[in-house]
């Protein structure tokens, strides 16, 4: 086994990932079978709580050009849609009665965004679509409406606010990465709906906080973040490793 391919520690299996990113899983195992030590290498890259080699080493690459920016949006919409679908499916919801139908709307809007982007990417950039992401919501307590000061996990509203604010900042920051006006226009049509969602959820947590500045926010201006900064936050909620390095290149 080559030292250069060995993971440096159990928390950072990145050196293995480029291997898998470039070849399909089936061809990887054919390759692994023919290469002494490669299987052991793949297993060494797994952290303890992951049961299959593939889940540990899956690195999601987003490609380049407008397809990469659309796939970036598609990744975030997948996460949002999965989160709200889980909220909508709760048999006992901690949300207030008046909030439940609105959260059902949020779930539908995000599912529409996800399905629309998937369809548009497949139509206009065939073969570039990213895989279905596996959400990881273990930092969210779905029995809590809002987290208490002593809670370590997010409540449903806290998570919704995080997702919506992040989505707005992501679309705002990604706009300049588009090369064509068609997709910039579509992103603009989606981001203002995300901002409406964000304002609604924020008002539920703290009435009147629909556009309140936090941290380094500039008065009257929403946030904008690079894909790298967005994934630094979104990664918490996804099993696969998200690679922002080529988005918009």
């Amino acid at each position, binding site marked *: 086994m080559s030292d250069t391919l060995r993971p440096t520690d159990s928390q950072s299996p990145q050196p293995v990932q480029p291997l898998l990113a470039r070849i399909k899983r089936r061809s990887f195992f054919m390759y692994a079978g023919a290469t002494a030590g490669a299987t052991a290498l793949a297993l060494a890259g797994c952290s303890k709580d992951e049961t299959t080699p593939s889940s540990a080493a899956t690195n999601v690459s987003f490609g380049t050009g407008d397809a990469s920016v659309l796939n970036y949006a598609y990744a975030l919409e997948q996460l949002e849609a999965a989160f709200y679908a889980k909220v909508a499916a709760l048999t006992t919801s901690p949300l207030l009665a008046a909030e439940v139908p609105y959260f059902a709307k949020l779930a539908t809007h995000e599912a*529409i965004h996800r399905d629309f982007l998937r369809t548009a990417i497949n139509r*206009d950039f065939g073969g570039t679509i990213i895989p279905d992401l596996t959400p990881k919501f273990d930092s969210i307590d779905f029995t809590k409406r809002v987290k208490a000061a002593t809670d370590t996990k997010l409540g449903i509203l806290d998570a919704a606010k995080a997702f919506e604010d992040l989505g707005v900042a992501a*679309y705002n920051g990604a706009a300049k990465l588009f090369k064509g006006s068609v997709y*910039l226009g579509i992103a*603009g*049509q989606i981001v203002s709906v*995300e901002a409406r969602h964000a304002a609604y959820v924020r008002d539920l947590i703290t*009435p*009147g906080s*629909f556009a309140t500045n936090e941290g380094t926010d500039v008065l009257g201006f929403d946030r904008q973040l690079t894909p790298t900064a967005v994934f630094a936050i979104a990664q918490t909620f996804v099993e696969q490793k998200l690679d922002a390095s080529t988005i918009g290149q």
Partner: protein
Amino acid sequence: MNFFNIIDLLAEADPDVLDRFSSRRAVFNSLGTVAQRAALATSPLFLGALFQKAYAGTASLPTDILNYALTLELLEADFYRQFLAAGQIPAGAAFDAITVIKTHEDAHVAYLHDAVIKAGGTPVTGSSTAGIRFNPSLLPATYADQLKYAQVLEDTGVRAYKGRAAELIGTDLLTPVLQIHSIEARHAAHIRTMRGQQPWVSIGDDLAADANYKAAYTSGVASSTRTTVALGGTTYGIPAFNPAQPSPQESNLQQGAAGTKLALLITTGIGSTTYLPDDAAAAFDEPLQAAEVLDSSRAGGLLA
């Protein structure tokens, strides 16, 4: 000079370039024989004419776009000034929210004013007595009706920014303008909540059926069209309204037309799930052209 290399280079910088020429085939067919094509394609005169035609209508200067945005922000800021001064807003959360929104509109005015100057233009101006301002005679007497105007102005503002963002591709202005755009959407959502409406635009909105406000939800231009706007002490250009392609109405169910590909029908065309028209419409906000926004049936009709 190689015509085809130029096209390739242009396509790299502007993927829509081939759409700008009515179509690639039409361009080449219009050139006649192979020999004529070769001769013509090396002619600077031919290329100049071709590109001038292809890029006509997208020639607004950044200062034009900024002055257009500044016009709307001045209108909003002055509306909120009058709204607060009228003394009808309940004290507490409602008054605080309108005050917050007013400070945002003032911040937008200040930013855009400076941006026009930095871009080498003359900013439009407005005050409580002159220039761009909300027509005081249109301010309704009651809080509930005043709040309707706030909703129309905010929803229209969101549509207006959306309608022109693409013209800022490749400039440093795109991102800050979009950061304003999504703040306007947050305002719109909050005003709608204050009015007991859904935070997003939906087919069942009360104002969508209200004759006085209906225009903000539909599209097109009722009065005469124009390509220059003389307001607030200066004149700026806006793109000519294309009557054949009015902006989609907010109830639009189709999205994503690209090149020669038709838009997808959101209700049944994007997968195995069928979506209700109300959700399909609400999930996407729609743009408005500048001529539509400034038309007398919409924001233009609210100017003093």
